[in-house]
């Protein structure tokens, strides 16, 4: 065939380029290219399984394509090879059906073992409920040492770094304000759920991943065997900021954990907001600004202008300028449209009465909004009344 000459030279060139490219890659192999180091026995088992199956597949792959490339080399027409005409052989057909089947059974056996272990969430030492919000994680310690601790964990990388206005830090995008703290060697059971859409909680070092489905409880477990900080991200597309809701777990010794729990408990006692107190406007506005920065800016923006039409402005919004009860209800219970929840989720579960009153007062008296008067100032008590009504 007349095409075999360009074919050969192109092939040679291409293979040369490929070779150079891949030797470059080989040099770069110091990079992250495999599963993260295991931090628990379960993860180690999974890594072993992964390695074993991969080696097996590679072996089959090399075998099969050994034949194919040999054919490409030896049975070329340009070498004058004449085509045989066989096209059936029941024996080999049976062989190459049965052998893969046997291999698959061989793979299924250890896999089933690891899987059954992975699904066994019984008898945990500590149970923590994890709630996915757009776009942050809520942690509630619901059983075991630390019961009662509850906090929200949000990305702490500054916006400037993301937008390229400041150099990026070491833990860019995988750092949070409040890390999940757990003791080493204890069986931790995580209950996942979500408030708005599906998120997914993943900790690769422990071989643990579970979707957080709104309205449902699902679970996973892990038993960390190393202290240290482990990082990961939400792994189910959950809207605009899906790439910006990291998960950070800090594993500490039992002793340190005890100390941490103690400190948390003290903080809870100290910072308990008094919902019966009356606040001054400025006090509420100041507190409200913090709450707003933490909970609302992602959508409604620091300017209060939102990014319409997806996220409406609060600056100049009819509701914000109107009677306050409507807004309190909207922020408490979320906004429904045609009977379906919108991205404006119910903040009632995340914010206490004081925070709620503060943030609403803030939106009513900031940017161009100057409500003032009785409708401009929301006291925690008023929130409580509306909250209890539901």
């Amino acid at each position: 065939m007349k095409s075999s000459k360009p074919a050969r030279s192109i092939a040679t060139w291409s293979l040369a380029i490929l070779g150079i490219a891949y030797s470059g890659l080989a040099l770069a192999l110091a990079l992250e290219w495999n599963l993260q180091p295991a931090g628990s026995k379960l993860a180690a088992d999974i890594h072993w399984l992964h390695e074993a199956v991969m080696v097996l597949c590679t072996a089959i792959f090399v075998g099969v394509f050994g034949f194919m490339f040999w054919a490409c080399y030896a049975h070329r027409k340009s070498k004058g090879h004449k085509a045989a005409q066989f096209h059936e052989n029941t024996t080999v057909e049976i062989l190459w059906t049965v052998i893969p089947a046997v291999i698959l059974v061989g793979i299924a056996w250890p896999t089933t073992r690891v899987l059954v272990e992975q699904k066994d969430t019984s008898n945990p030492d500590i149970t923590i409920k994890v709630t996915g919000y757009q776009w942050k994680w809520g942690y509630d310690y619901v059983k075991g040492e630390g019961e009662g601790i509850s906090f929200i964990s949000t990305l702490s990388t500054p916006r400037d770094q993301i937008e390229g206005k400041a150099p990026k830090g070491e833990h860019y995008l995988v750092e949070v304000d409040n890390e999940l703290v757990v003791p080493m060697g204890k069986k931790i059971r995580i209950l996942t759920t979500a408030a708005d859409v599906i998120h997914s909680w993943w900790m690769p070092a422990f071989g643990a991943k579970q979707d957080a489905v709104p309205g449902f409880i699902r679970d996973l477990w892990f038993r960390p065997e190393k202290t240290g900080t482990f990082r990961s991200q939400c792994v189910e597309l959950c809207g605009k900021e899906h790439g910006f809701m990291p998960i950070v777990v800090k594993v500490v010794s039992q002793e340190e954990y005890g100390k941490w729990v103690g400190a948390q408990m003290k903080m809870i006692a100290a910072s308990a907001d008094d919902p019966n107190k009356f606040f001054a406007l400025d006090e509420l506005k100041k507190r409200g600004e913090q709450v707003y920065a933490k909970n609302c800016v992602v959508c409604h923006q620091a300017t209060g202008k939102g990014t319409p039409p997806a996220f409406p402005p609060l600056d100049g919004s009819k509701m914000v300028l109107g009677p306050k009860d409507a807004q309190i209800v909207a922020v408490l219970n979320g906004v429904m449209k045609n009977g379906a929840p919108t991205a404006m989720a119910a903040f009632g579960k995340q914010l206490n009465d004081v925070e709620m009153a503060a943030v609403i007062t803030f939106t009513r008296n900031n940017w161009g909004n100057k409500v003032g008067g009785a409708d401009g100032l929301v006291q925690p008590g008023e929130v409580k009344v509306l909250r209890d009504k539901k």
Partner: protein
Amino acid sequence: MSAVVDTHGHDGHGHDAHGGGYHGAGGIMRWVTTTNHKDIGTLYLWFSFIMFMTGGAMAMAIRLELFSPGIQFFNPDLFNQFTTMHGLIMLFGAIMPAFVGFANWQIPIMIGAPDMAFARLNNWSFWLLPFAATLLVMSFFTPGGAPGVGWTLYAPLTVQMGMGMDLTIFAVHLLGMSSILGSINIITTILNMRAPGMTMMRLPLFVWTWLITAYLLVAAMPVLAGAVTMTLTDRHFGTSFFNAAGGGDPVLYQHIFWFFGHPEVYIIALPAFGVVSQVLPAFSRKPLFGYASMVYATSAIAILSFIVWAHHMYTVGMPVQGQLFFMYATTLIAIPTGVKVFNWVATMWKGSLTFETPMLFAIGFLFLFTLGGFTGLMLSLVPIDIQLHDTYYVVAHFHYVMVAGALFAAFAGVYFWFPKWTGKMYDETLGQWHFWLTMIFFNMIFFVQHFLGLAGMPRRIPDYPLIFETWNKISSIGAFGFGLTQLLFLYIILKAIRSGEKAPQKPWEGADSLEWTHLPTPVPYHSFETPPVLK
């Protein structure tokens, strides 16, 4: 394997006496109103190429944004929209129509039929597509933009989207309608329009794979239509299909979607298998090895494909029994697929091989598709998938089976049949450049994504932690190279149409199905008005 054919039928059965040409409306109305399977096949192929460019442009945007960490070019919302539309457009706009185009062109001339069984319906199946595509692309320009929910359109995120979501839902309805009508047509054509003597077990394998694909489409597409309809009513009429507060379940959406979605991936793969099963024997100058077992393996894949869907949902929290069932069922698919791979290699074994462009793409397919199949097998094992689900490992897996699989096979098919369709030869040297550049850049984009996935990079994110930077840079450079290479493909095609050498009736020595043995090149407008005589 095609029929043994009596060879004195060559010079066109006197079609030329009928004039051979076209007798309908002229100009653009010819294409709008045509009932000719070749015209419609051509329309499908051009449409698919345009959509490939559109979806590819979005892929370029994705790779551009991912070139460096940080938000550079597109805000996260727009990025998600690109990802979603890239997936939808590539699947429903590029790959599926490409293979329906092949089906239209090839099935009648491979089985000796005068045309498709329902020629008018055929026209409709095509002309639904541009309207559906318009709806899809239009959604970018509505308030709130296109939906940024991923091609899987998972509830309840879909409930939050703006009107772009509704446009997408209706587009999916139209696309589904097109596929269902097209498939009914294909099934009927294959069952009812074969020339006397063309028994089922003499059908070229391409025809067989399409018969089975069409069956998958008729069974799966209506289920997708149901799923998006439920999304629509949850959005606007207060139903609770996917809302826990009303007793529904977001996971229900996933079950319904993947009941469609997994067969869908074989809808993409099976016609590709068919093309490769025509090309490999032709350039090996040796009949396809194990014809019957190929047919049975394809059927087995199709049947299994309906009981494995939940392997996309290992992390939603199924009971362990469910996970085990779906894992075992999924791994079973490796057996029939393996049979096919082995048969292909055995076809080449002791052949008399030459390596023209179609053959190169077919070998590229075989090599890389199998690699993608093995990563699929890794993903089918629940504990491993729990680590890899929703990471770039999955992205690497499915581009290996869909780009190096389906797209490579489509390229192979175009180069293989182009002379038959147009009567012109393409430029072999350029064709080989196209193959090698595609091959290199493809691996550069997607091989490294395995590493990214293993190291923990989630998919569908516009920005990433610093440790992932190097691989992403390599991947992006590969992507730009890949994109430019496809412009070369366009050039090759246009050049061949304009000034290609005249092609003989049978440019490929080893090709032996009806269209090569019984029809002149280019194929006349009406081919088998009277059925060919087969021995």
